């Protein structure tokens, strides 16, 4: 946002992106590759630009995005636990089992866009509001003691997002000055958004909403157990 107003005023309220997004993304990949070298592991372009970096380079990628690609607007920072839920799908009713595709009890980790090697992945999105270039950065975290450098010096807004990721996933943000609970009470144990944290409501009682996806009961038959709860 250093000098945004003058550049935009000239376009007279039109869309502020004269360059096609593809060119911008290719340019961004080049800049990132040049700045990060081997730390840049994978890229993927589909609307936004996804990049996966080494977790040691996490703060560096933030600086490159902000200072060299002009992504001044901080969108969010969070994490993904790629481990399939060890509770299988039994938190839902039987009908929720997928009829095809991979065996849902298969606990092998399968990462999404740009791949990944470990269970926990931290990801953040920033945006250049003038060109419309959005970049989603991802980093694999070590399975033992997941930790990553903080983004607070780069984007001040990362503070609360990192506190949330810390309490929900148990990811340490090295250099964060104030890593404490943001939503949960101070004495809370466990990391709720990890897949191995059970959702107790589903353990106690099957989800009554399951009637939505099974076939309607035929006329004259008893409604299935659990319906109308």
């Amino acid at each position, binding site marked *: 946002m250093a000098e945004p107003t003058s550049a935009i005023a000239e376009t007279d309220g039109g869309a502020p*992106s004269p360059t096609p997004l593809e060119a911008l993304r290719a340019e961004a990949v080049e800049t990132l590759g040049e700045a990060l070298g081997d730390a840049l592991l994978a890229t993927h372009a589909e609307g936004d630009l996804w990049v996966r970096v080494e977790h040691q380079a996490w703060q560096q990628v933030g600086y490159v995005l902000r200072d060299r690609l002009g992504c*001044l607007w901080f*969108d969010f920072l969070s994490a993904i636990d790629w481990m399939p839920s060890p509770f299988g799908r039994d938190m839902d009713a039987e009908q929720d089992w997928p009829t095809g595709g991979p065996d849902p009890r298969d606990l092998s980790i399968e990462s999404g866009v740009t791949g990944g090697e470990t269970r926990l992945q931290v990801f953040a999105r920033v945006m250049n509001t003038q060109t419309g270039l959005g970049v989603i950065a991802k980093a694999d975290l070590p399975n033992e003691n997941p930790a990553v450098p903080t983004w607070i010096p780069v984007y001040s*807004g990362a503070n609360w997002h990192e506190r949330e990721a810390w309490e929900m996933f148990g990811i340490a943000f090295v250099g964060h000055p104030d890593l404490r609970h943001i*939503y949960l009470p101070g004495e809370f144990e466990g990391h709720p958004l990890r897949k191995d944290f059970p959702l107790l409501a589903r353990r106690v009682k099957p*989800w009554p*909403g399951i009637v939505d*996806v099974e076939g309607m009961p035929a006329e004259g038959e008893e409604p299935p157990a659990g319906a109308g709860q």
Partner: protein
Amino acid sequence: MTFTEREQQAYVDAASADARVNVELETEGMTLNIGPQHPATHGTLRIVARLDGEQVVAAEPVMGYMHRGYEKLAEVRTYPQVTTLINRIDWLGSFANEVPFILAAERLMDIEAPPRAQWIRTALFELSRIANISLFLGDMGVQLGALTPVFFAFRDREFVLNQIEAVTGGRFHPNFDRIGGLKDDLPAGWIAETKSVMAKMRGFCDELEDLLMGNEIFEARTRGVGVIPDHVAASFGLSGANLRAAGVDWDMRRDNPCGLAYESLDWKVWTHPDGDSFARYWVRLQETREATYMVEQLLDGLPSGPIMAKVPRIIKVPAGEAYVATENPLGVMGYYVVSKGELAPFRVKIRSASFSNISVVPWVLRGVYVPDVITILASLYFILGDIDR
């Protein structure tokens, strides 16, 4: 750089001497708890402020009184069931919450709603904006001691809610958006009625402009108060009117209208260079008026055709990741949906506007006077459900 032990000791001595002098000059520090139950917080937000006399030294919002864990709950619900939950994030503009999630699911499934559904979606989206922001426009007066605007706001918002109810059946939680389109078409006579309501809402905007803008007390309490410069706003992730009031000309509706019918409308993005409480109010007022014109244009140009695309009865979303954000009443709201090809999403990251908007509070409240705390909080405009999710 290394210090010798002696240098370190000298530094500590000097610091403690400074502290002694400051203690003598300072008034006694005080901690003020604002909330969790306070009329200015629209819910249960607690602000712990450390005061020095009348000035705030440090302020720290305490959230979580209403945390409902939607990101976890979404993982055990099917895609159509998730919209029921996310309706309750920003409860004043509920329909707008559903739209980015549905768009993300549609992007993963590679289907597109038919044009008529897109246009009605956009019209309802803008109606939620009007219903939501009109309450802010009235509420800002209350925080400054002017009670009349809020009565006007509650009175006129009802007309908009009636229109939303007429289509969706719900005043606050429509749950009307579907993957591939909408649940139903518009009821008969709705278009003409909505146009008259839009004229009424423009009257409401004019009324509030007369009541508050130019009022000496209102200007004195908001002009130059709570200034957030553009680079700070961007780095904290502020969005919506809070960002445009800092002079940033960026609106997702114009710059990235993914799947909504904004491209064919003639409208303007309002910005204000000041970045203070007044600018935030002014921008929202202009946006509300602009939205009424947008709804009228949408209803005039409404294409005919079906309102649902061909969608399987049991919705399974192919594996992939998608992030879709829209310009919601409170700011940019986005859903990062990770699918593994099952009935339920694998992970949903909800990027809610108020959470980022309010994260600037410790920065902006430093050094302000206690009465301004209330106006600055009100002008940032947050909904608790949108912070706590």
